[in-house]
């Protein structure tokens, strides 16, 4: 019975993640169309809602090309390396509290509550850069190689501030378990959310959001693909489902990072002024908060110009890291005072 429940939960959560990624591709196109005074896809299904399905079919039917001189094994491995870690990280995200569906007790709504949940997420999402580096290297293309190199440099510079900022939250909540972190904030009073901790919370939130943009290779930090310079960057030579896997990985990573931001700073599934809300309300709250960050990803991408690669490194090492460290110190002082 426990196994069956786990199976149902896993399929629900993974199904949810993949559907979110698919919806994100549609949202990206629809919202960018709105921003750019266009209509966007509206042919497949009512208002274009089935566009992701059509895209998927198209990707599967396209010819798979492996360039001459490419390292075939690694060339195949890279898209998997990009997509799998992002999908695995979702296992520890707590989506809601005690869940009962049709009288069946599902326990807490998350696949597993690891004691080191945050560490698990950071470690795995750090792995996803290997997909980009290996893909860039194995393609036997100079554009791809440069894209891969940029990605590696970028990840190194941003991982640190990301982790430092996450540590601030760990210090505030006293746990690395994501469920614990949410429960500490879930008091019915939204002011208990970490983002409302004076100064520390706001600085942390901003730093963390910017770092997630860099971590997921999103605009304005998308040097690894950087269309005008590197054509397609690391995925220049990829086609068909391999290309789709890179994108799936990117959108899954975005979704997970948005979930993580919600958990760490916005109280996860905690509903304002309603401590013991039913699981459905909690889940809806969680999704609402997450979709705000997902929208932010899209909004920023279609509004801002792109940084230059060395400017990003400067920003990462000389601005964000010191601020993140200072913020961590401040959090320590804050804790010892209260």
């Amino acid at each position, binding site marked *: 019975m426990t196994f069956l429940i786990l199976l149902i939960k896993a399929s629900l959560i993974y199904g949810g993640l993949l559907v979110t990624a698919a919806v994100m591709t549609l949202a990206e196109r629809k919202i*960018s169309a709105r921003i750019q005074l266009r209509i966007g896809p509206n042919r497949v299904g009512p208002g274009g809602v089935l566009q992701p399905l059509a895209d998927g079919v198209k990707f599967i039917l396209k010819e798979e090309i492996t360039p001459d001189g490419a390292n075939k094994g690694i060339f195949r491995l890279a898209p998997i390396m990009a997509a799998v870690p992002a999908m695995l990280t979702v296992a520890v995200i707590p989506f809601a509290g005690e869940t009962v569906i049709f009288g069946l007790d599902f326990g807490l709504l998350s696949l597993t509550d690891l004691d080191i949940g945050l560490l698990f997420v950071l470690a795995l999402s750090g792995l996803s850069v290997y997909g980009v580096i290996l893909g860039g290297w194995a393609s036997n293309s100079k554009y791809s190689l440069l894209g891969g190199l940029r990605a590696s440099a970028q990840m190194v510079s941003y991982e640190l501030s990301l982790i430092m900022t996450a540590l601030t939250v760990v210090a505030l909540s006293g746990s690395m378990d994501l469920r614990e972190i949410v429960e500490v904030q879930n008091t019915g009073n939204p002011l208990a959310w970490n983002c409302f901790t004076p100064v520390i919370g706001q600085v942390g939130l901003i730093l963390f959001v910017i770092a997630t943009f860099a971590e997921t290779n999103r605009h304005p930090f998308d040097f690894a693909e950087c269309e*005008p310079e590197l054509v397609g960057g690391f995925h220049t030579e990829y086609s068909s489902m391999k290309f789709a896997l890179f994108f799936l990985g990117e959108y899954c990573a975005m979704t997970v990072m948005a979930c993580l931001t919600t958990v760490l700073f916005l109280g996860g599934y905690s509903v304002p002024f309603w401590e013991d809300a039913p699981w459905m309300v909690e889940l809806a709250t969680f999704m609402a908060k997450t979709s705000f960050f997902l929208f932010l990803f899209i909004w920023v991408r279609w509004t*801002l110009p*792109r940084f*230059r690669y060395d400017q990003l490194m400067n920003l990462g090492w000389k601005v964000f890291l010191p601020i993140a460290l200072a913020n961590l110190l401040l959090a320590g002082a804050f804790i010892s005072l209260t």
Partner: protein
Amino acid sequence: MTNVTNKVLEYAAGNSSDLELDPDDPLHGELMKINVGPQHPATHGVLRLSVELDGETIVSCDPEVGYLHRGKEKTCESLGWRKFLPHTDRLDYVQPLLNNTAYALSLEALAQIEVPQRAQEIRVLMMEVSRIMAHLIYLGTTAIDLGAVSMFFFTFTEREKAYDLLDAWSGHRMNNSYIRMGGVYADVDEAVAKSIEEWLRAFPAKIDEFEKLLTSNAIWNARNRDVGVLSAEDCFALSLTGPNLRGSGVEWDLRRKMPYSGYETYDFDVPVGSAGDCFDRYLVRIEEMRQSVLIALQALDRLKQSKGGDFLARDRRYVLPPKGRTHESMEELIFQFKVVTDMRLPKGSAYLGVESSKGELGFFIASDGTSDPLRCHVRAPGLMNVQAIPQLAQGRLLSDIMAIIGSLDFVMGEVDR
């Protein structure tokens, strides 16, 4: 920057004859050569840049032009003066009306035709609208190269409106061939003039919107400031003109310095930059759009007063008679026949430069007195702008090429001809 990179740069600049790269050095062991273009999303057409990279630093950048060469200048010699006009549309295809005017001005100078006042006013209006449209292309494509994709759509939305107006005005959206030797092809339709005025009056607000998105944006500043710095001397050496020269602080505008089409009677400012970097060139172009709106509005005002005047010279040696008249008058039919089959310019040569959106654009024409042109040479500002790329790109990062290419602003149709 490391010593090795410095050494490589010196070698590339020709200051040092020996370059010994240590093959065991993992960071600077060998240079990477990549082709940016001719099929590449950022090169605005078919420019090929052969770039040597040391890491991400550009050691040398060698632009190669000619992928769009169609032999336009030679074509003129076999087509004759009249029939070459539509080909000028296709030189710098983002501003056909400016090309038409430049060509017509040279022909008129050689033939010594007096252009009617009203035609000159229409030309000024058309040239300024073209300038705005060309600068919108600059803004949109530069922004998309630097990652601000949506700007491209905003500027093209405005450009699309202008296209519709030109369509209503001249009968063509893009390759207008509207400005002819001796005047313009047709008179202004009043309803169209009114909608142009509406568009012009609404446009400055749009420029403000563009500026809101870019001018104070930290990323836009970081990408453009101190990138692609040209001193005034550099500009002279590379014969750069137009916004590129003005961005470096030289107040040189042919509309002021060597006026044509009555520009001396219009009231406008010539914006100049100071630093000569990509950002200054951007600011100059933004301000030029504002000034163009002012000039165009003045021209529209004058058009209201000169209503009913001639819009085409009556010199029958060079200018076609109105179509209806050829069916009524024997002489007009003969004139039409002569102009179409055997139009001769006097022996001699002429050159007249106009301030196009990219710099001084002019047609040098030489005639031996027969109906076949002896020589037609296009002084295309875009070619000079391409010349500046190697100097500006050297020692910069690969990403800077995009800002530099964008801010120099050229169209390959004009560069390759």
